[in-house]
């Protein structure tokens, strides 16, 4: 006869409520692990998917994600001339925040090197890759934009032609992909007044120097657009992505570019490590600590619940001892309830989590390894939590039946 199941049947409502409580607590533990995994996955998603061997960024920076990187646009051409390089493409990354329908809309703008890179490698769930060099965008579904919808950014309007799923930046902002020039236009957008003031300042500077006085055309051009002044380079880019030729060791190309004094170069794995070790590391450690605290709190709460359940049964336990029941019978009663409580709580955690986690604003990734680990932890804390109740039960004297 299984005493644990009989007791649960008798106090079914209380057991169900307790199990739900423990389950929700375990769901938080499960969720914390999932948030940590999500954080790493979000951070490395683009690096993992973008299909490149090397990242060329501004010298001594950890760009373009861990910190700002600015390199001249012609770096793309310099890199492509390195022996062993199959292709190079410019990459721009910046985050903008705009108001849309009264709500803040945060977008991580990624510039693709049109026409070589049209975003065909992106995980599209609807629509298509970029089909023209301007005014099109591919948006992640978390931005809640639909195909054909238009978004005004900088001074232009962009049409959503493709939808991706699960693409967000290391900071959790949803990604949108544009042709490189459009991304730069969004990144370096200035108001008309700011442009006029800049041109005016430029004119004043030109007037003060000899060249301005002797070359009237210089003064004249200083009042025009920056792109018409050959002395000023095109807008900077964030990085250059390098694909090496088949059979060529990427380290070899990396060592050549690393010798240049104006850039740093990272392998794809190196860039990934920068993200995980830099941006994510502190959040990861904080989540791990919080998760550990939650496990301890869960253990304590379970121990108190089981202790209370045992206290309720002390008279019955004394009676069992009086009838000559072995300690194993009493241990079994408490331990089985503890494991059942933990086990069912775990099932509640899993089932509720499966429905709740997708509603979280940031990605929650639950992997089988984490589920197995948590299952082991739950069994462990169930056993440990029951020890308090067991210790109390073993101290009960049969004579307490008489009291």
């Amino acid at each position, binding site marked *: *006869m299984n*005493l644990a199941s*009989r007791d649960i049947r*008798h106090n079914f409502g209380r057991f169900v409520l307790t199990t739900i409580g423990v389950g929700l607590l375990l769901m938080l533990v499960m969720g914390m692990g999932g948030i940590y995994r999500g954080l790493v996955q979000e951070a490395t998603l683009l690096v993992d998917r973008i299909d490149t061997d090397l990242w060329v960024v501004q010298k001594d920076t950890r760009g373009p994600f861990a910190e700002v990187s600015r390199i001249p646009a012609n770096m793309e051409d310099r890199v492509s001339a390195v022996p062993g390089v199959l292709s190079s493409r410019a990459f721009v990354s910046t985050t903008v925040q705009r108001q849309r329908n009264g709500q803040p809309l945060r977008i991580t703008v990624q510039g693709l090197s049109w026409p070589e890179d049209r975003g065909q490698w992106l995980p599209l769930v609807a629509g298509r890759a970029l089909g023209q060099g301007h005014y099109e965008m591919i948006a992640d579904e978390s931005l809640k934009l639909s195909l054909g919808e238009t978004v005004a950014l900088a001074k232009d309007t962009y049409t959503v032609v493709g939808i991706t799923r699960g693409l967000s930046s290391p900071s959790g902002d949803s990604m949108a992909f544009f042709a490189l020039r459009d991304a730069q236009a969004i990144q370096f957008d200035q108001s008309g007044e700011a442009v006029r003031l800049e041109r005016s300042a430029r004119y004043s500077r030109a007037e003060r120097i000899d060249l301005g006085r002797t070359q009237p055309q210089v003064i004249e051009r200083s009042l025009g657009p920056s792109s018409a002044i050959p002395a000023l380079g095109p807008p900077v880019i964030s990085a250059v992505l390098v694909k090496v030729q088949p059979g060529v060791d990427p380290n070899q190309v990396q060592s050549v570019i690393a010798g240049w004094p104006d850039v740093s170069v990272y392998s794809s794995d190196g860039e990934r490590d920068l993200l995980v070790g830099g941006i994510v590391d502190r959040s990861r450690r904080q989540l791990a600590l919080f998760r550990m605290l939650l496990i301890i709190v869960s253990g304590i709460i379970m121990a108190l619940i089981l202790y209370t359940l045992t206290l309720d049964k002390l008279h019955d336990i004394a009676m*069992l*001892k*009086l*009838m000559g*029941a072995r300690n194993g019978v009493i241990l079994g009663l408490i331990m089985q309830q503890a494991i059942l409580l933990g086990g069912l709580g775990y099932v509640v955690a899993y089932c509720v989590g499966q429905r709740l986690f997708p509603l979280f604003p940031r990605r929650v990734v639950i992997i089988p390894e984490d589920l197995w680990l948590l299952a082991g932890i739950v069994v462990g804390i169930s056993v440990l939590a029951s020890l308090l109740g067991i210790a109390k039960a073993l101290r009960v004297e049969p004579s307490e039946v*008489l009291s």
Partner: protein
Amino acid sequence: MNAGANTGETVLQAEQLTKVYGSGHTEVVAVRDAALSVARGEIVALIGPSGAGKSTLLTLIGLILPPNAGRIVIGGKTVFDNHRTRVNVRRFRRLHLGFVFQKANLIPFLTAAENVRLVMEINDHSSRTARHRAMELLEYLGVGERAEHLPSKLSGGEQQRVAVARALANRPALILADEPTAALDSVHGRQVMELFRKVAHEQDAGVIVVTHDHRALDVFDRTLEMEDGKVREAAPAL
């Protein structure tokens, strides 16, 4: 121990039992040099005023509390002697003793039948045997139709009958009942006392019943009286 036993054979022999609670100024002698014997098939009443030491004597005989001195022999086996318990008390209680208290003390989350089965299953009887014996006992004690009810659904008298069935389940040599009718009205109280007599005579067990109810003393084969921790044979009722 029960198998093959003869009616009239001594099932309990207690000599010079002493139990002292506390020490120094707070010392209370609950049982003082108590001696008694009970034969198989015999039902003995233990009466006396409150605080006389009746319940304490029962806990000593039932191996619930250890005496400070004395000797206890149950079914021919010395279980306590020379300040030492000579048996594994939990195992001995499981195999040879049955208890009934003022409150039925049934396990609240088990049905009447399960309460009876439980003592057999913890004594390593098969589930099938235990089930059969439980129903047999509940029928015998007149509560067979209440077998699948939880204790909370039974009346006080029915609960006490189930408690008696539980005490009988392992065919104990000695049944100890501590004021088993105190919570019952006089009619049900008498029924329970007669039940003990029936059990003693038909199941061939020795039964000691602590009671305050002098109206039911005619049910007993013998009456012992306790006062100030001492036991003596009571004078026959007039």
